[in-house]
């Protein structure tokens, strides 16, 4: 029975693909808190033992108050190329346009992107990349500090991103 809850928690950690809390695991698996906590310890031990013999490229580790299944540091470089981007392409395109035109009216963006702009704006706001303020019947969109941090800009370099993008256009002309 113990063995089994070990595998169930393993399944949960594998599926999540991100750090998850004990509560989240309980909720997803219908196991009790105690059972989950003990399963996590055993799993961490199991993967550690395997790692000692180089019998796995994976580890279970603590990340803050959460737990994650992830690649062992030695193997991360082989995973980079194949793992997916956390911002879907369609949103990346839209946020790139906003970065270039900002501050920009949502209605103007709609002319470029089409009516999916509303959905994109909602998602991008949720991700924390853009913020909007009401302006008459439309909204003005612009980038957040988080956006600059995410792409490694100093927040003081607001214009830099635009320059990067402009450069790109020049080169492709």
């Amino acid at each position, binding site marked *: 029975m113990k063995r089994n809850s070990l595998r169930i928690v393993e399944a949960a950690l594998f599926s999540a*693909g991100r750090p998850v809390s004990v509560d989240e695991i309980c909720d997803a698996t219908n196991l009790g808190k105690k059972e989950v906590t003990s399963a996590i310890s055993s799993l961490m031990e199991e993967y550690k033992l395997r790692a000692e013999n180089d019998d796995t490229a994976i580890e279970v580790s603590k990340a803050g108050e959460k737990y994650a299944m992830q690649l062992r540091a030695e193997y991360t470089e082989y995973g*980079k190329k194949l*793992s997916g*981007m*956390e911002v879907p392409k369609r949103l*990346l395109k839209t946020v*790139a346009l906003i*970065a*270039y035109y900002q501050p920009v009216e949502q209605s103007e963006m709609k002319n470029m992107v089409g009516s999916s702009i509303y959905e994109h704006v909602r998602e991008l706001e949720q991700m924390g990349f853009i913020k909007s303020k009401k302006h008459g019947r439309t909204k003005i969109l612009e980038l957040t500090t988080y956006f600059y941090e995410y792409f490694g800009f100093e927040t003081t370099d607001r214009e830099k991103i635009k320059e990067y993008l402009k450069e790109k256009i020049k080169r492709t002309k």
Partner: protein
Amino acid sequence: MKEEIISHILMQKEDAARKDKIEEYIEMAGNSSMYLKDPFDRAIALTFDLVMEEQLDPWDIDLVSFSRLYLKRVKNSGLIDLITAGRIILMAWKVLKLQSDRVVSSLEEKEEEEDEWGEIPDWYMEDDGYFYTRSVIENGPPIEEKIRRKGERKVTLIELINAFEEVRNEIKIKEKRRKSRLEQQEKFMENAGKAAGENAHQENIEEEIKLILGRLSKLNGRAMPITEICDIHNKEELVMTISSLLFLTREEKIIMWQEDFPYGMIYIKKVHHHEEK
């Protein structure tokens, strides 16, 4: 009298709280049907008003009781104010429509929930497919999504810039297409305008109608498809024929109908009394 009539045309439901509520509505809406002098008419109109104002459920109205009651009154008094009667009947019709709308929309909702799976046609009975299809529809699909790790990584600046380039190109192409579509439309309108201008000179409606009438004379009261009197692939001839036929329909010289709107065949039949003249 008012309350009596109202309670008569309301569905008999045993719910004291609901009845109180209805009386409250009636009090609230007390004056909205004051344009009717007769207390009987006013009571009925008032009730219907409440339905229109969404204070009363259309299904609370018993239209059968209403029509019986109304007929009885007409018989007894012998006199009716046609305008008022018309108004009340219109209101009754509106209530009926609200009732039917409700039924239709609740049916639609149900369909959406159940996602209306069709009947499995008989011919599936003969093979394994029938059992498979039935099992999928009734017990669910025999396939399941595989669960894989959805680990994601951060997006790099290079990827952002590439996405920008991609979307810029897409927008350019879209814009080009839009422009060429607009140009084409303009050209088309211009040509159409010219063609209409030329046709206006050639048009001699009377001549055309005579021509069509001549073709129709072969009908002898029989219905014929439009394909027998004109070449439907020749657009100009088709337009000319249809406009003549529409004219003749308005003059009640022929009747014209279409099977299976909007793409079905159009049939024409000559009207008899005109032939006799």
